[in-house]
């Protein structure tokens, strides 16, 4: 019984952390990625990608609590964040094009 409670506690803590920190990380990565790759002028890329970030964060928070496993849900969060951030920050001069 007490083992179940502590598992449950870790389960909740993992999801809360994933919603707050993971959600922000994914939103950050998506924003950075779109700010580079949207086919728009630079000011518009920046504004529209930033405005979309809150929808991404909300979606991740919902996903995190809907996911079946409290540990495996971290895989897509870390994966998406890493891939999109690398694609955004390693795009050379392409990211600062006007």
């Amino acid at each position, binding site marked *: 019984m007490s083992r179940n409670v502590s598992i449950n506690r870790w389960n909740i803590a993992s999801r809360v952390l994933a*919603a707050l920190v993971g959600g922000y990380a994914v*939103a*950050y*990565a998506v*924003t*950075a990625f*779109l*700010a*580079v790759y949207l086919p*728009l*002028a*630079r*000011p*518009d*890329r*920046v*504004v*529209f*990608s*930033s*405005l979309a*970030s*809150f*929808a991404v*964060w*909300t979606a991740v*928070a*919902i996903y995190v*609590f*809907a996911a*079946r496993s409290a540990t495996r849900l971290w895989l897509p969060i870390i994966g998406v964040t890493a891939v999109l951030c690398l694609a*955004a*920050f390693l795009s050379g001069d392409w*990211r*600062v094009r006007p």
Partner: protein
Amino acid sequence: MKLRQSMAGLHTWGGLLPSWLLFVIIFAGTVACFDKELTRWMRPALHDGVVSSLGADDVRGWLQQNVSEELHAFWMHGPTEREPYWRLGWEVDATKTIHNVAFDPRSAQAEPMAETVGGEFFFKLHYNLHAGDIGMYIVGLAGMFMLVALVSGVIIHRRIFKDFFTLRPKANGQRAWLDAHNLFGVVGFPFHLVLAYTGVAIFVASYMPAAAQVSYSGNVMQYFGEVMGSFEREEVGQPPPAPVSLDALIVESQRQWGGGEAGWVSVHHPDDASAVVDVRRRDRSRIGSPQDTLSYDAGTGELLNRQDASTGYRAYLWLAGLHMAQFGGTLVRLLYLLMGLAGCAMLVGGLQVWLAKREQRGDASVVWVRALNASVFAGLPLASLALLWGNRLIPAGFAERAVAEGWVFAGAWLLVALWSVLRRQQGRRLLREQLLLGAVLALGLPIINALTSDGHLIASLGRGDWVLASVDLFLMVAGLVCAASAWRLNTTPAAAAARGRAARIQEA
């Protein structure tokens, strides 16, 4: 766990934990719909509805005579229908402190009115809780919680259409509160979703700096300049020539726009030869006016730049405009006010569902949650009324008068919180007494207004000044509603208990 079950947990806890904070934000935002009308009420000098005849140069003249420090910038706004007086603000270069002054519209010379926090107090409470940048981030996080609670609320709500037409006030406590929570939640849902999203979007540049970091390599000045299409000029470290007339620049701007009104007029580093005057256009016919700022050399009056905002920035302004409700006049603001009140009712209803569920289980710790409820849900409105009392009773010449008003608000709130904690075991009696206090405070305000100014209800109604009269009238209605609720609460405990028993027997 099924999707709906996990979403129910998320909705319950993700909604419960920030709900007191969200109540403060939504209540303050609701009051702020009519912040300018409240400011008029709070400044007796504005009660006769005289429109200022000063010009921009008179206002700058006052600044040059009364402020000797070197300024980073100063800015001013002329009289409008809702604010018939000149406002001036400036930032001191060395200390980065910001000062604000409003000028008496009845005076032919620039003469400051008595200090007050004004209706802007609630606007500021709404967006940063009077806690600077930290408060702004806390409000943003609360906004994200609200978005998540709204989305998860829709997912768990199987019968969203049917529940819209369901209200069972005679059902047992939990069911009735759930109906109320659903009713206000569903009616207000589109509004609350849009306002939560546009609310967090306003400070997007602070909350989500990713795009600027990657696309502008973190160069914030370049980012703002390019996105807004605004104009900046480096200081050259030489004394300025004699400045041109600001009033002439306003007239010139109106000519450039082909008519239209000027809004904010700002002067950047006025004590340097590189000083720039910005004249921003005020266009109330649109949700998000593109601002169309014209920048002039402060010494020669030469037009330096015509703002050409990017499409993205126009979209941002539209979202921000949708949130700030400065379009469409009184009717739109009234709708926002009603929807804001629905938001407050949704929060209170949701919390009552949570409480009723736990009370049935005989959970002893719920009294503390009830005490917190009373401290916030009753405390904030009572403190707001106390603020208006402070505004009327603190003498006009009092030093740091606006700060004193703020302390009246904070002190009153602390007292109500203390009262709620001490009386936590007698929730019903506490609620009745708080309602009675609310009635006394609200009904007393039109009277104290009549005693301390010429803008009393009879005078304002006689002039047909509905804007000023409506503040007094609203306070009277609020006071009467409080009194009626207190009276009802006094007469019905036995009846309510009997009804509750009957309902439970029926269900069983």
